């Protein structure tokens, strides 16, 4: 029975996050379906509703007639307090039913700092945190998304993980569940074994025993059954043109982070920046055809009425048919008052022609990511961007009357020196100089360059996965040093909190022994750690101390090149050999050509894929 929460909704901030009833939501009769699936996004409604992956998988699952997939978001703190005060469990948006009424409860793990929200949501739903504490009467807890590539820190809380793209895997999981229920042979233990055995890409952590060396590093992962894989290879959708595409989406009434049509142009990235996890784990590159994309864009525009279409992919200007696609789109977007936007532009591809096509009236600012201040360091990270490229790109923007540029950098990168840090300030002032040298600049306005500096975090499945993160002290010194180098008031300088980055590094490279710390964090009410107002470094350190976790072991230690890594149980397609070669090249200051120029043999082509630049794998 659902309680009347109208009085509570009248007292909390933005109650539209909890009321549901959106246009486009899918309602089924719960008596008619065989499996109820709760898709949880462990952050606020505004963030979760903006996630393209959730939109796709919500559609995919609801295509299954006998499955009803609903959405769940993490209620903001004021709402949670009321819920706990009045014993209201966490409920799904569509039906308003508590999570315990569902058969499968899935979480998308988009960033490490959302782990505390996952646990908090389970707790709010009255579901025991640890997999071993949950019997057959509780829903199966499933994880997926980019952080599932190293699921170990949260392995004890999940029953199984989906490794890779979920469009085919999730329906397969549901079918197996329904089949075993109908045949009367369902038990959680049987199901987990069967899923691990028969569905590629499924990782059931409880079926693998982990042993450790005395120095704390991993000794081995041992499957407890002979018939399950010793390494879980990620799943991909081979042909993106034929991949499921949601032609209906749930339309939020309240404003969300990305309130626009999101058109996924391709998966993967040809670049291979050495700090970037997304650039590796989504390989191989698979493009969609412009004709297909144009039809999909029309379809979404008609269904949503959005006035903006964002072409989303990792490095959108690398799309081989970008011009053809934008031309096709512009044939109908202009007259329908729809603007195009392209996030993630590379400076070397930014041209006047391109800028003329994208949304220019709405924002006067452009963002580029040189990532490092000197050519030497940009070569180390394989950014393959030169200062001339950046200055040419900003010049195009200035000529078009723009006066603000935002530049993203990273501090604490491997081999970084103070010269590289100073280079950030110099690069910013060169951009200012470029403005004044530009004859057709907007003379009424002063230039404004914002430099935003984040901290390097070593991530699994990158050439820098073994690197030690800079210490807090060193990162703080560098941040201060850069601040002292910036004297021009036309340059605005912001930097990320190094403390958050350190905890993120621990969670990114952690193993199963982090579970007690996360569990304690949940007990002590940690939530929304990705939000500045909630994150408390000292409390994190305290929680780790009390559970015997040394953060430096995970964040600031150079992992051994021959060490068994906690995420070695996962095969993302790209070989460890390749990552090691890339690491060597980084230290030698050598760049690696992008996938389209030259195949460097990362190994991801073994996964197959259509409309890719990879050579066909031999086997």
């Amino acid at each position: 029975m659902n309680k009347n929460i109208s009085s509570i909704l009248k007292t909390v901030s933005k109650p539209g996050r909890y009321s549901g009833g959106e246009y486009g939501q899918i309602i089924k009769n719960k008596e008619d379906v065989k499996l109820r699936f709760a898709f949880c996004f462990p952050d606020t409604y505004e963030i979760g509703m903006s996630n393209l992956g959730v939109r796709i998988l919500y559609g995919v699952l609801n295509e299954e007639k006998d499955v009803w997939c609903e959405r769940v978001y993490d209620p903001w703190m004021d709402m949670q307090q009321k819920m706990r005060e009045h014993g209201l469990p966490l409920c799904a948006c569509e039906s308003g039913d508590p999570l315990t009424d569902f058969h499968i409860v899935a979480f998308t793990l988009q960033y490490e700092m959302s782990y505390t929200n996952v646990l908090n949501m389970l707790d709010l739903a009255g579901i025991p945190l640890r997999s071993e504490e949950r019997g057959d009467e509780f829903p199966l807890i499933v994880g997926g998304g980019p952080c599932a590539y190293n699921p170990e820190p949260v392995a004890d809380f999940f029953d199984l993980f989906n490794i890779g793209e979920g469009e085919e895997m999730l329906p397969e999981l549901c079918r197996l569940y329904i089949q075993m229920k109908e045949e009367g042979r369902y038990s959680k233990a049987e199901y987990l074994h069967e899923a691990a055995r028969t569905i590629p890409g499924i990782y059931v952590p409880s079926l693998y025993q982990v042993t450790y060396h005395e120095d704390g590093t991993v000794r081995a992962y041992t499957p407890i059954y002979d018939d399950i894989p010793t390494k879980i290879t990620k799943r991909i959708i081979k042909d993106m043109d034929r991949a499921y595409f949601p032609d209906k989406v749930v339309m939020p009434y309240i404003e969300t982070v990305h309130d626009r049509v999101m058109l996924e142009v391709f998966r993967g990235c040809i670049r291979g920046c050495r700090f970037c996890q997304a650039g590796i784990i989504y390989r191989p590159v698979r493009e969609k055809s412009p004709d297909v994309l144009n039809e999909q864009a029309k379809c979404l525009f008609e269904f949503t009425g959005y006035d903006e279409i964002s072409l989303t992919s990792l490095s959108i200007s690398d799309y081989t048919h970008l011009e053809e696609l934008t031309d096709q789109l512009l044939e109908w977007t202009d007259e329908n008052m729809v603007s195009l936007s392209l996030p993630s532009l590379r400076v070397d591809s930014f041209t006047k022609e391109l800028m003329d096509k994208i949304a220019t009236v709405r924002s006067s600012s452009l963002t580029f990511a040189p990532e490092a201040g000197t050519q030497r360091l940009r070569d180390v990270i394989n950014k393959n961007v030169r200062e001339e490229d950046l200055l040419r790109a900003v010049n195009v923007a200035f000529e078009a009357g723009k006066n603000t540029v935002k530049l993203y950098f990273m501090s604490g990168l491997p081999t970084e020196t103070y010269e590289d840090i100073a280079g950030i300030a110099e690069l910013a002032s060169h951009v200012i100089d470029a403005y004044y040298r530009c004859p057709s600049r907007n003379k009424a306005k002063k230039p404004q360059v914002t430099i935003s500096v984040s901290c390097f975090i070593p991530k699994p499945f990158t050439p820098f996965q073994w690197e030690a993160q800079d210490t807090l002290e060193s990162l703080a010194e560098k941040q201060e040093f850069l601040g002292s180098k910036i004297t021009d008031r036309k340059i605005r300088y912001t930097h990320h909190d190094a403390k958050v980055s350190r905890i993120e590094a621990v969670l990114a490279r952690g193993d199963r022994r982090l579970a007690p710390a996360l569990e304690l964090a949940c007990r002590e009410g940690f939530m929304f750690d990705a939000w500045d107002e909630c994150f408390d470094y000292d409390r994190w350190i305290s929680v780790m101390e009390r559970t015997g976790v040394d953060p430096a072991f995970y964040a600031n230690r150079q992992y051994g090149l021959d060490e068994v890594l906690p995420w070695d149980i996962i095969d993302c397609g790209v070989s460890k050999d390749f990552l090691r070669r890339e690491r060597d090249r980084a230290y030698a200051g050598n760049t690696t050509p992008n996938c389209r120029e030259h195949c460097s043999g990362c190994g991801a082509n073994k996964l197959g894929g259509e409309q890719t630049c990879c050579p066909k794998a031999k086997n």
Partner: protein
Amino acid sequence: MLSQSEKLIEKKRLLNLPVLERPMTVRLKFRKVGKLQYISHLDLRRTFNRVIVRACLPVWYTKGFNPHAKLVFSTPLSVGAQSVYEFLDIRIDRQMDCREIMDRLNRELTDELYILDTYLPTSDFSEITWASYDIEICSKGLKEESVGEIRRTLTESPLLLSKKTKSGEKEIDIIPMIHSLKVSYDSMSNTVKLSAVLKATTGEYLNPELLITGLKQNNQILQGDPTEEWYTILRTAVMKDDFSLFI
């Protein structure tokens, strides 16, 4: 496979509709009830912007740097209040009859946000002076005698309540802004029902929520478990200064 782009083809057809000499204003009367009561005025505007595009209405766009459809709403409704008597004026620049406008919009809406009527307006939103509300309160301890107590609270001046204004919080007496009030008690559902007509001009607008605030302060209601005690506010009409219905 994807459906043909029917709406875009439809839009092309609509572009050939007879062009109006001047943009014409069309008034939409709509309801906003149920879950939609939690959607703010700003979000409602955003929603209508999209709904109008989805419905392929031949709306007139402002000619400017950032073209947009002109939407003019009548007296805004606060979050947590429902209404069956809301208005939105839109402007179209091609011929389309009112019935078709309504049908097209309703295909893109849900029952909780629904167009009730569409016509060419003969009045101006500035003529709106009063709004009538039905308020239902379910709270422990309500009884027959509560009717008198509630009426007393809401009729004996002054009832001073703090109201947020642009220049900070201000104490105001809300009684002069209450034109009429009916109170009744239903023992079957243990609810008190209020019917009130409140001032609703731009300068002087009494938020019906303040009536609840006043009752909470003076009548010890809605103090218990919020999952068992509740109230609803429904705007039933808006009126001109002579209390004739605004249309």
